[in-house]
């Protein structure tokens, strides 16, 4: 049976456990390496644990070495993590030490064929690439697909403690408690390049409708919106009941992040925008003007 190791993100243990649950649906043996200061709820059945403080966690050079040495003593087919910034930084370092293949932002894994196949959207064109590796373990960061729940049995784990002697670096750590849980949102109102620098309108709609404001990569790159609200391949993958896309062209980068929404409404001046093809309803209108009208109507209803 194939063996997979998931290195959990010390700063996102919940999302890491969702990845455990996701991989457990495949016919493989899943093990977890927990690093950081972990509480019981964040372990699962097959767990290795390195107890590290925040100043040790930022010593990436030594930490990668220790984890790399551990992986060498085992025979894993894949070693993966969620595609968070911290984990991407760490696992790229580990993969270079192991001289092994590394793939970023994987959206699906196919264990069925003779080789492990990783699916990843390409950035240009509307295409997806299937990537294989010549050597094992194959390492990757995986995009959170959401909606997998790990059911936890507290008396059922086989915990192996790994002692390390990683130097603490002098560094000041600040944690940002993210309150924006796009993955769980039922209603998302998203803007793109076509909306321009008018996201204040979306935040007002957010208030009225109790949805969440999100945006495309372009809108985040333009500095209109915080990164944590980005939907798409290098942002979040969401599955709301209703997704309202305002002034979004619909590059594949964005579409992989929201195509699983139950109902998609696109507001776009451009009839041929790519996002229209996956929408249920297309409203041909200017994004900003439409938001203004919608806000006026909502105010009148109040």
């Amino acid at each position: 049976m194939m063996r997979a190791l998931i290195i959990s993100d010390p700063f996102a243990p919940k999302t890491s456990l969702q990845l455990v649950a996701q991989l457990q649906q495949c016919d493989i043996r899943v093990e977890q390496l927990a690093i950081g200061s972990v509480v019981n709820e964040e372990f699962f059945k097959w767990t290795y644990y390195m107890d590290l403080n925040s100043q040790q966690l930022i010593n990436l050079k030594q930490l990668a070495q220790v984890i790399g040495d551990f992986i060498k003593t085992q025979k894993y087919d894949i070693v993966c993590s969620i595609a968070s910034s911290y984990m991407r930084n760490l696992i790229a370092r580990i993969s270079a030490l192991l001289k092994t293949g590394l793939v970023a932002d994987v959206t699906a894994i196919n264990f069925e064929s003779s080789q492990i196949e990783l699916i990843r959207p390409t950035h240009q064109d509307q295409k997806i690439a299937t990537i294989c590796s010549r050597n094992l373990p194959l390492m990757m960061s995986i995009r959170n697909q959401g909606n997998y729940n790990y059911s936890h049995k507290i008396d059922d784990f086989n915990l192996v403690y790994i002692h390390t002697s990683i130097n603490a670096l002098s560094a000041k750590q600040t944690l940002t408690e993210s309150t924006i849980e796009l993955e769980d949102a039922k209603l998302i109102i998203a803007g793109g390049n076509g909306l321009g620098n008018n996201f204040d309108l979306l935040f007002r709609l957010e208030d009225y409708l109790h949805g969440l404001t999100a945006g495309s990569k372009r809108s985040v790159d333009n500095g209109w919106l915080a990164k944590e609200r980005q939907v798409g391949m290098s942002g979040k993958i969401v599955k709301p009941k209703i997704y309202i896309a305002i002034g979004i062209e619909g590059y594949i980068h964005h579409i992989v992040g929201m195509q699983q929404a139950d109902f998609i409404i696109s507001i776009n001046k451009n009839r041929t925008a790519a996002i229209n093809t996956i929408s249920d309803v297309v409203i041909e209108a200017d994004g900003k003007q439409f938001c203004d009208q919608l806000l006026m109507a909502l105010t009148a209803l109040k």
Partner: protein
Amino acid sequence: MKIICLVKYVSCDSSKQKQLVINEDDNYALEIALRYKDKNQLTTIEVVTMAPAVVELQTHDLIRKGVDYVTILSDNQFRASDTYATALIIASYLKNVTYDLILSGNETCDGNTGHVGIQVATLLDIDQYSYAKQIDICETELLAEIDYGQVQYQMQVSYPCLISCLKTKTIRPRFVKRTNRKLPVDSKVQVINNQQLAVDATQIGLKGSPTYVKKVSQITLPAKQQIYLSSQDGLDYLLNKLQSEGYIR
């Protein structure tokens, strides 16, 4: 202080002609190095890029902006290398070069992986941090603000190190000054092929990279039948929909 800037020439904007330009993040990182040199005359900046030889003419502008040397790693054997193989090639060159600091952009617009800088630093066995929001190059160490999203670190990093910088809005990459547009540069740009670099050819390129692309397929998006509505009908429709789903009470 000797600073190496790693840059990639990319073609990202699909609407324009497929012209190679310097990757945006890398250009910001280069600007940080150039600004340090503006204030510290004894600084040397070398740009290192793995690229097709056609970029040579374009790299002349880097010299005209204040870069001291440009090294282009270019060979048919390098083509189609994955991120690890690319890092192996770049690190093979850097192993024989002295430096205090290596800067790169956080990621490229064509791959968005951000792997290469990290892997280069690993092969050189030096410290590396990505997602650097702010750096302050000091004589004995570097002060960095690393932004991983859920967690931020403010830290001192000792030289030598590699820092992968996020694009920041507070600085704007410079252009070549009008008076420097025709500055001769030839001896400052070198092209190195694999005969000189001698990276094991079985470890790089299409055949030697650890990963390879098995196939590329068109995405089949779920076929949906759309309703097209005008602005006014759309507004009525949306209000109705939101009301019936309970978002407007």
